[in-house]
C-alpha cells in the first residue's frame, strides 16, 4: 500500500499492522500507534507530532529524515529500524530495544534513552543536546 503526502490527525491506530507500506512524506498529529506492528514499512520524511508509539514492534522499517515532536516510544522493540537524519524533540525511548537501529546524523533534543538495549545501535554523527542514556548499555552502541 502506498499513501504519500497525506495528513492524519486524532486517530486511534492502536495494534494496527503496518506491513510493507509506503507512507513517506505524510503528517501524523496526535495519532495513537500503541502496540502497532511495523514491518518493512517506509515512513521516511514524515512529521510525527504528539504521537504515541508505546510498545510497538518495528522491524526493518524506515523512519529516516522524519521529524518527531513530543513522541513516546516507551517499551518498544525497534529492531533494524532506520532513524538516520531524524529530528527528534522531546521524545521518550525508555525501555526500548534498539538492536541494530540506526540514528546516524540525527538531531536529538531532550530525548530519553533510559534503560534501553543499545547493542549495535548506531549513534555516529548525531547532534545531541539534553539526551540521557541512563541505565542503558550505551557502551555496546556505536558512537564513533
Amino acid at each position, binding site marked *: 500500500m502506498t499513501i504519500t503526502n497525506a495528513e492524519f490527525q486524532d486517530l486511534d491506530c492502536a495494534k494496527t499492522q503496518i506491513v510493507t507500506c509506503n507512507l513517506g512524506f505524510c503528517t501524523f498529529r496526535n495519532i495513537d500507534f500503541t502496540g502497532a506492528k511495523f514491518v518493512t514499512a517506509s515512513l521516511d520524511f514524515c512529521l510525527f507530532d504528539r504521537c504515541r508509539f508505546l510498545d510497538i514492534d518495528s522491524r526493518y522499517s524506515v523512519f529516516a529524515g522524519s521529524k518527531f515532536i513530543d513522541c513516546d516510544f516507551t517499551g518498544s522493540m525497534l529492531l533494524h529500524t*532506520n532513524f*538516520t537524519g531524524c529530528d527528534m524533540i522531546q521524545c521518550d525511548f525508555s525501555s526500548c530495544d534498539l538492536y541494530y537501529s*540506526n540514528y546516524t546524523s540525527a538531531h536529538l533534543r531532550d530525548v530519553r534513552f533510559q534503560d534501553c538495549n543499545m547493542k549495535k545501535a548506531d549513534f555516529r554523527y548525531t547532534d545531541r543536546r539534553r539526551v540521557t542514556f541512563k541505565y542503558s548499555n550505551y557502551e555496546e552502541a556505536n558512537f564513533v
Partner: protein
Amino acid sequence: MSMKIFQHFSVVGFCNTYLIGQDGGGPAILIDPGHVDVELIELIEEHHYTIDHVLITHRHDAHVQGLGTLLKIYTPEVHAAAASIYDYHVSEVTDNQTLHLCGFEIDAIHIPGHSLDSMVFKLDRALFTGDVIMSGRIGSTSDIMERELLRKAIRKRLLSLDENLLLFPGHGAPSTLKIEKMFNPELLEIIAATAELIM
C-alpha cells in the same frame, strides 16, 4: 504476480539474508545465506518456495556460511563473482551481466573495495548491496588503497542510479539511495569530493 522480498536475520554473523520470489510461491532466490536456521527454512516452506538460485554479494564467511546446510536441503545454482566458495561449484557472475532467474531480471554491478569480489545486485526497484553500502556507512576496508577503490567505484557506479531505489544491505536496517545521499556521512564525503573534481 508480484515480487515479494522477505528479510531474515541471524545472530550468527549478524547477516541479513533475503528471500525473493513471486507472490504465491514457486522458485525463489536467496541472497547471502549467512546462516541457515530453522526460522529461515520455515520462512521458505511456509510461503511454498523452493530455492533455485543463490546470489552471493561477496565471499566473506558471514554471508556464505549457511551454504553447506542449504545445499543439503535444496539444489540451487550458486552465483557469485568469486571463482569458488569453500568447495562448492559457483556460476561466475561478471560486471554488467544481466541474470534471468526465477522470472526476474537482475543486474550485477561490481563494486570492489570491501572485498575484490563484491557485487551489488539490482532487481527491479531494489538494490542488494551486501557490505558495499549500508545504512549510514560504507563498507569497511583493510587499507587506504582499498578504501579509495571502494569510494571510486561507489562514485562511478552507484551515485548515478535512481535515488528512489530501495537499499537492502548485508547488515543493519534498510534504506534508500536518496536517504543515504542525504545522511550517510561517508557517502556525503564522496559526493563532496566529486563536486571538487568537477570544479
